[in-house]
């Protein structure tokens, strides 16, 4: 089933917490260069799925294949990050005592080992990269501010900037527009589309307007498994999806 173009393949992944099945034989395929929106009610398993992909949670059964043949379930978070999978959390988590600049510096792709960072000096190349990202995320004027002093939206952007700095192949973005103004939401959608030109993206989101604005393939999760998949119009017409979201 694995084709040349598949980037990520979840194969029958099951996760249980104390008898509760957070993921139930979940299977999902993501193509190279694709952007995918994942929606679903609370407890559908969206975040757990992200946890499994990024190595935070180990599934009870099932495989997660990245690229050609890398099984992610055997790797830990830093190894998976090094493979080129970046993750943005639901609640923005930036390093608050550090400046915006330093946050990006830490995120820049490069040697992560202590023996390097202990003696590392900032190179001209790194400087240009950071400046470029700052421009992209519209924080050039705030480079020297403490990240902790930024507004909520700015933190979200900084975090996306940090993801970019990692130069990942695949971005996992958890509710990127929660708490944003309409204008910011629109800018974020634009930013994600821009990112998608060179990388694959998985967006978990509640905001249907935003998902619609992205205009990408949608996967609906329910009780840890895929309920429906297709365009936003297709899934919103699916009676099962309607029932899950509206009915009881």
């Amino acid at each position, binding site marked *: 089933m694995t084709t040349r173009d598949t980037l990520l393949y979840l194969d029958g992944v099951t996760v249980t917490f104390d008898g*509760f099945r957070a993921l139930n034989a979940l299977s999902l395929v993501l193509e190279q260069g694709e952007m995918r929106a994942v929606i679903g009610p609370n407890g559908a398993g969206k975040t*757990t799925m992200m946890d499994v992909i990024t190595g935070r949670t180990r599934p009870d059964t099932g495989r997660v294949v990245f690229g050609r043949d890398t099984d992610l379930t055997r790797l830990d978070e830093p190894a998976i990050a090094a493979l080129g999978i970046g993750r943005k959390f639901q609640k923005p988590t930036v390093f608050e005592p550090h400046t915006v600049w330093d946050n990006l510096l830490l995120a820049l792709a490069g040697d992560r080992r202590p023996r390097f960072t202990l003696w590392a000096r900032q190179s001209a190349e790194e400087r240009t990269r950071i400046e470029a990202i700052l421009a992209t995320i519209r924080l050039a004027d705030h480079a020297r501010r403490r990240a902790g002093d930024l507004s909520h939206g700015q933190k979200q952007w900084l975090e996306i900037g940090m993801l970019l700095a990692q130069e990942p192949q695949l971005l996992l973005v958890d509710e990127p527009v929660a708490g944003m103004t309409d204008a910011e939401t629109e800018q974020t959608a634009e930013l994600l589309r821009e990112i998608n030109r060179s990388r694959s993206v998985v967006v978990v989101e509640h905001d249907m307007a935003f998902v619609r604005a992205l205009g990408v393939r949608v996967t609906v999760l329910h009780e840890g498994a895929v309920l429906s998949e297709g365009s936003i119009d297709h899934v919103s017409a699916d009676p099962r999806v309607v029932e899950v979201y509206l009915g009881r």
Partner: protein
Amino acid sequence: MTLLRVLLLLLVLSPFVARAGDDPIADLAGNYDDIRHAVDALSVSGNARAEPVIAALQNGALMVAADRSLWIREGDAMLDARSGAPGSPNGPLKPVRLNNAVRRAIEAAMGNLTLFSADPARRLKAAQALFAQPDPAALPTLDRALAKESVAGVRRLLQQAQAAAVLAGADAPIPDRLAAIVVLRARGDLAASNLLAALAGQPPEVAAAAAEGVAAIARAQKIWALAQGVFYGISLGSVLLLAASGLAITFGVMGVINMAHGEMVMLGAYTTFVVQQAVGAWLPGLAAAGVLIAIPLAFIVSGAVGIAIERLLISFLYGRPLETLLATWGLSLGLQQAVRSLFGASNRDVSTPGWMSGAAQWGGVTITFNRLYIIIFAAFVLAALMAVLRATPLGLQMRAVTQNRRMAAAMGIRTPWIDALTFGLGSGVAGMAGVALSQIDNVSPNLGQGYIIDSFMVVVFGGVGNLWGTLVSALTLGIVNKFLEPVAGAVLGKIFVLVLLILFIQRKPRGLFPLKGRAVEA
């Protein structure tokens, strides 16, 4: 041996001694040797005053005046030792002092004198005393007693005492001695083994039978030792459980690192001391129940202090576990010093009530009562805690608050109040543990310090937030510790356990019974 010879002599001469006017009662005013001989003489003299006088001597009620006249103190009255008639001694009185040799003589004498009491319990005690102080001189008495005895338990003990007395003498015929060895071997405990082992120098066949008896007892004891070890382990485990169960609430359920937990235990122990003093002063009739009265009071005292600590200190530090650790450590220093200023630095004397002292013998296993009661108490405390957490509205609210504080608040639960109560409950349980610990450990300001590290290890090893885990963990640690101790020594055993625990926690940071789920993976 001297004692023996004297006794034999006395036995032979007793009719003369009694008649000679050589008054043994008067000798009780002499030195230790005089007293000892006098007791021996009195016990076989047939003197009617022998029993009350020796009993008084045993209880410290026999007094001597400056003119060497002897008196028995009975309440406020003074009785003349010789006549038993009330009188008034001239001059100040001093109690007659004893040493261990005298005490042994008294024990044997009381055995002799009460062997024919109408009360089977007293006869049993007498038989026990005679077994403990075997004396061939008592053989005729024993024979008479055996002939009359009808209660099976007393009879068996009398036979054992008889056997012991036969073996203690030098002139019993060999078949008698062999029969006696069989009786003792059947008794099968360390005391019997002790008596048999002393026969090494006897004629070959006796010595051989005795050696075989010793070996048989040793074999049986080895098996019993296993059971005994388990009892020790459970008993240590129950102490650990008591010390840790309060922490299982404050740390396990609430996540508060309370370094002053040990001081809550210490406060409970001091409450016991105060209660005992108060009961002793005002309600002497209830003295034996002092410990029981202290249990609820210790719960209230430590619980109240706990609530105060939560409101005044910890509530400002939620979400900052490491700061809580430091602040409560500071608090523990303050509490220790406060208790030291209040009660003094030295240990306080908390006495063990009669019903908690002593031991029962179950085969080869000695079950000490204080430990047994502590095991029962620990089980009771754990059961009560579980009941509170599971079956009461308070428990429900506690669990609601710890699982989802905001939700609980939204549902109208007064979360600060629940926090305080939960912490109070944990502290109160620690206070009750203090009551138990006052029975086996020093009541000193440092009491809590000795248990704090162990308590944390128990809770972490068992799995935070899981009372069953705490139980299993405490018992495991107790038993492992007690089985390591004879092999490795007390210190090395403890170090081993600590190192094993450190390694275990590094392999399984969430303990034996981890709570799974996303919520706890922070």
